[in-house]
């Protein structure tokens, strides 16, 4: 058996999903699952460094998730240290959270899975977009799932998406995320998590200037919120500010080390491109036919971005030219080749409306920092954000 060896295969375990989110980029969802025998056969011949299970909703095929982990653990071709790393990296599962039931969580505990739960914020925000096929909201179910994770001692985190419809609630969303982490974990975790892409704004929408104005105002309110929390000392306020406002994006390794494999074991540069209607022209090949690879030009584009020049551009800003006065690169927004492709037809160009909105946001952040940031003084020296002393 010869297979195409992928360092980090991104497995689309199933097309199915038990939800019907209004903004989902996966239109015309199928009802196909990966074949467990073929999956095992592939994993036997590809001693990968890690995997990234995806869907649809991956928990609909918990058995496949477990099979991947078993394969990693039992594969004699993977050296011990590398195996440990691979297993650790492969334990993150992105889920909508609605299937985190007792039986699933027992498996989570057994295999050491960590749940990355998608939730968009408070009830009115979550239920605006993230709904079951019958239209009913999912908020209550997901909150219960978080409590279940806590009860079973499963590591969890929450991540959300902001759409054009929920931009007016960005402040509410921030507060909700922060308070939820604070109440269900602790303040330190809450502060740390706000720097980890806790939520991001959808790329592929027709934003207008009103959206931009509202978003800027919401961010201003968030700065005010941070600096008026009496339970946070100045150092923690600055840290939370840094984590949330100055978080760094980056360019993923999709299309290079990470390649998506769908239920037919067809390969695409990333999971998003494997799920969109125009996927046919983005097909690279099938993992079981490594000598029939195609679409090299697309792969070269990904390689250019992820490994070589790492340059993407748009109407106002490119991905490395927006800097504050200290030359720190500000990237509240993300640069995603796949969404670039979807919105502009090329992996190099970011949606101009999105780009402008975030360029303005980054300008605002510079001013917010000037207005709100607290200069810390310790033992006669001023500490900067890296905690090094400037006398």
């Amino acid at each position, binding site marked *: 058996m010869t297979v195409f060896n992928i360092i980090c295969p991104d497995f689309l375990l199933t097309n199915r999903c038990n939800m019907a989110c209004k903004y989902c980029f996966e239109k015309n969802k199928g009802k196909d699952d990966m074949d467990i025998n073929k999956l095992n056969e592939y994993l036997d011949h590809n001693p990968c460094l890690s995997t990234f299970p995806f869907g649809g909703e991956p928990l609909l095929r918990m058995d496949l998730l477990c099979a991947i982990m078993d394969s990693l653990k039992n594969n004699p071709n993977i050296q011990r240290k590398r195996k440990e790393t691979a297993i650790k990296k492969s334990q993150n599962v992105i889920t909508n959270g609605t299937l985190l039931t007792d039986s699933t969580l027992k498996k989570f505990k057994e295999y050491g899975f960590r749940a990355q739960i998608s939730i968009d914020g408070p009830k009115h925000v979550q239920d605006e977009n993230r709904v079951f096929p019958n239209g009913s909201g999912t908020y209550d179910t997901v909150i219960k799932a978080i409590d279940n994770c806590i009860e079973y001692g499963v590591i969890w985190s929450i991540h959300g998406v902001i759409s054009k419809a929920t931009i007016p609630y960005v402040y509410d969303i921030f507060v909700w995320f922060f308070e939820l982490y604070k109440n269900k974990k602790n303040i330190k975790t809450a502060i740390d998590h706000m720097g980890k892409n806790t939520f991001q704004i959808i790329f592929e929408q027709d934003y207008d200037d009103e959206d931009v104005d509202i978003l800027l105002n919401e961010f201003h309110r968030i700065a005010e919120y941070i600096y008026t929390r009496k339970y946070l000392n100045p150092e923690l306020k600055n840290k939370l500010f840094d984590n949330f406002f100055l978080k760094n994006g980056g360019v993923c390794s999709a299309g290079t080390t990470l390649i998506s494999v769908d239920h037919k074991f067809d390969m695409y540069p990333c999971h998003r491109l494997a799920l969109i209607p125009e996927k046919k022209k983005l097909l690279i090949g099938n993992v079981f036919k490594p000598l029939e690879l195609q679409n090299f030009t697309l792969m*070269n584009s990904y390689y250019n971005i992820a490994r070589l020049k790492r340059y993407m551009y748009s109407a106002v800003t490119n991905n490395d030219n927006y800097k504050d006065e200290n030359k720190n690169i500000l990237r509240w927004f993300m640069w995603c080749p796949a969404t670039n492709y979807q919105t502009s*037809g090329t992996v*190099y160009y970011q949606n101009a409306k999105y780009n402008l909105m975030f*360029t303005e946001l980054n300008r*605002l952040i510079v001013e917010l920092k000037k207005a709100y940031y607290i200069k810390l003084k310790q033992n006669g020296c001023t500490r900067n954000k890296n905690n090094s002393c400037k006398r």
Partner: protein
Amino acid sequence: MKEIDFKREIFIKDLFNAQMILNQFDLIHFENLATFNKCILNDLFYIEENKSIKISLNNFEEYEGVLKIFEETNICDKMDVILKISKQEVFDEVLSNVVPKKYAIEVTENVEAGYNKYWETGKEWISKNRLVQIISMNADNFDEKINKTISIYNQQNIRFFEFDVDYESFNELKLGGLDKLKYWLHHLRDWLVYDMSNRLNIMKSDFYKPIFISEDLILYLNDKKRHWIWACYLGHNINKTGENIPYKELNKLRTYLDLHTEAMYSEYDVFNWKLIDFEQCLKMYGSINEIPLIMILFGRWLHDSF
């Protein structure tokens, strides 16, 4: 909330303004005189220094119309004006009726445009202006076409050539074919360089973005008008702003409008951007940002390096 020193500087509505599009390109190629007039009428184009325009002329009446514009405006002083002619009879009439203004004439390969033939009639014009011969070539005939270029250079005294290369046809060429291409491009280069005159015959060109606008006000990357590769419907969107034009349409235009050298990916430096055909980049690589290797090789072998 604390007061902050912040004011919006850029606006989504300004991301599209039909009246501001054409002049952002280095060369604006109008399909015919009627297109040029339509653009003026709709304020889609204005006279601006250091830009080039090209108008394709299909008959002598169009040339007369162009002369009227030359009379009434300062377009020849401000802009680099090129008239493209693809019919022998139109060219013959045009060259018999040249006026002492600064404008170039570009002829397609089917038009015989030797300086010697017209020296008497257009003497004053010829001594001050450019007469450009377009040579089209592909993988099957590049040797013949390069030889033809040298012949025209020698026999007709033409000094300005523009190559229209079907780069995609070179996809099928094997290594031996590439060696042959290299030989012929060096051969051409040697004729042009050693013959005399100056190396300027093989021009280098900075980054350069042309646009073609058709009579129905559709933008294309070149005059081949292949809408299935890239087309933007300027005419349909005259009254739209960045806010109400759909993002996909806006991005398709701006992908090219905002293109700059940093956003271009190529294996080697480009010497002559006029040899880069963005439409063929898109067709061959699926991205306007990537320059196929054959385009780079063509330019570099012609320019003596590598």
